[in-house]
């Protein structure tokens, strides 16, 4: 069943839409949640919560790309859950590792972007990513959107882990330069 049909079922409040979503994207969503939470049960709960949220959002939302839409939902949910879980202790999974990498270019600061600034930054990020070579861009997204481990990415691309690390490092540095050029305070 294609995504359009599934979305139509959501609009018709047909609960089969949930089963179809789970069947089509359940594994994909679970992998995102698991990368972040490093726990199968938590990832499963995240999947369930994401389906519920999807049910509540559509309608009125009418996503152009259901796969990306649910990926964003589950990612945010997993990160929220991760933060709740690790408020008192450092958690496992890929988040702390990815954070430590990113903090290489983002110093620890409490400055928070306004909503307008956030939108502008996301637009900048999209533009930056689109100008990167395909492999470098995908590696970066696999790492910092999907929060996949370096070894998983290396396996996907059949690269040495050290090679993946170098790609990530170079892309971070390019991002840093691009941000400086655009006047973002780093």
């Amino acid at each position: 069943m294609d995504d359009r049909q599934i979305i139509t079922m959501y609009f018709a409040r047909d609960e089969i839409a949930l089963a179809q979503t789970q069947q089509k994207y359940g594994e994909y969503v679970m992998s995102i949640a698991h990368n972040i939470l490093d726990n199968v049960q938590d990832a499963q709960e995240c999947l369930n919560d994401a389906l519920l949220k999807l049910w509540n959002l559509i309608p009125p939302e009418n996503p152009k790309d259901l796969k990306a839409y649910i990926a964003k939902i589950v990612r945010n949910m997993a990160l929220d859950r991760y933060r709740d879980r690790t408020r008192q202790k450092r958690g496992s999974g890929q988040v702390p590792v990815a954070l430590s990498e990113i903090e290489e270019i983002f110093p620890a600061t409490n400055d928070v972007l306004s909503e307008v600034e956030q939108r502008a930054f996301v637009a900048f990020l999209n533009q930056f990513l689109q100008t990167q070579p395909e492999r470098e861009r995908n590696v970066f997204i696999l790492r910092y959107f999907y929060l996949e481990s370096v070894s998983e990415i290396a396996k996907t691309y059949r690269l040495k882990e050290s090679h993946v690390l170098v790609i990530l490092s170079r892309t971070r540095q390019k991002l840093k330069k691009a941000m400086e050029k655009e006047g973002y305070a780093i």
Partner: protein
Amino acid sequence: MNGTEFLRLMGEIDGGLIVNAKDVPAPHRSPAWRRMLIIAAAACLVVGALTAMIVITMRESPDAPPIDTETNETTDVPGTADTQVEEYFDHFSTLLIGGDFESSCGVSGNGEIVLGATTTHDTQAPREYVMERNGEHVVFSYVETCTEFLYQEKYHVYENREKRLKIRVNVYTEQVTFFTSYAPNPINPEHPVYTEQELYDVAYAFLCQRVSDPEAYQVTDRELFDGEEDGLSDELKVEFSRMVNGIATSDSIVLYVSNGQIGLYKMQNFGQMRNVTPLTTEQMSLIEEVVSSRVEKVYRDVDPKYSFSHKDTTYKLMRMSDGRMAIRCYPLIEVTNVDTGTTYEDALDMLIYLN
């Protein structure tokens, strides 16, 4: 903005980018790809003639009696050892056999066929493999299953050189790998095709021997070809020691050779590479000479019908568990079967101790 907020905003990027990132194209063959092949094949230490890989889930092991790997005759295993073997099977979740030049294939304990365990081979071998199963030849498509294992570098090695049998225990994934010349080569008609059961029996027999005579199969952190004279001059060893002692705080040190540039780098903070001290061309030449001589030895010892030419080598400087430093080398070789003229690539995994 901080790292946490950046990660959150990454969640808002364009959906097309998100979806496309998962649609990974097959990598092209390139020098970088070849370099990657070396690493992927590093876990597949090939010494003997063409062999193949089989995966057997140990929990579902059959009750067949083990065979003697030299005589091929069935041998009895003492009850206690047998029990220990069962425990061993329970402890390790997966058993892998094989590793070859041209192809790889495997059979899990529940009969599922697993192929392409060493990623080197898709450059030369077809995307489909043939293996005998239950008396029939079956064609299987290429799938990757063991890549993760191959990227692991921590494993223990048991080796029986006389029987050309080697077992590695990955201490992280708890997978056990057998490298054995008893395995089949499904795409080379010169080599016999063995059944799953025969392969399984070899593995089972080895485990029995291992349990019955643990001293014969000591766990070590060493890898193939270690413990031999390394051929490096004292001066070079001193030079390495100086460099290593200056920077070594972990085993994450890479001797990096690329595009004619030679340098010693340290991996820091997940990927920041820092050039510490370059090696001289003379030093590298000496190391390459040692590698080349060892490659020759490997091939000459194994089977004179194979000739080879050295194509490329990557190096990694690492600290072993006993505190010694070593250069781990992954020479990429072009191997030619003198009889048939068939040419293919192979990669070796070598260790040269520096102190």
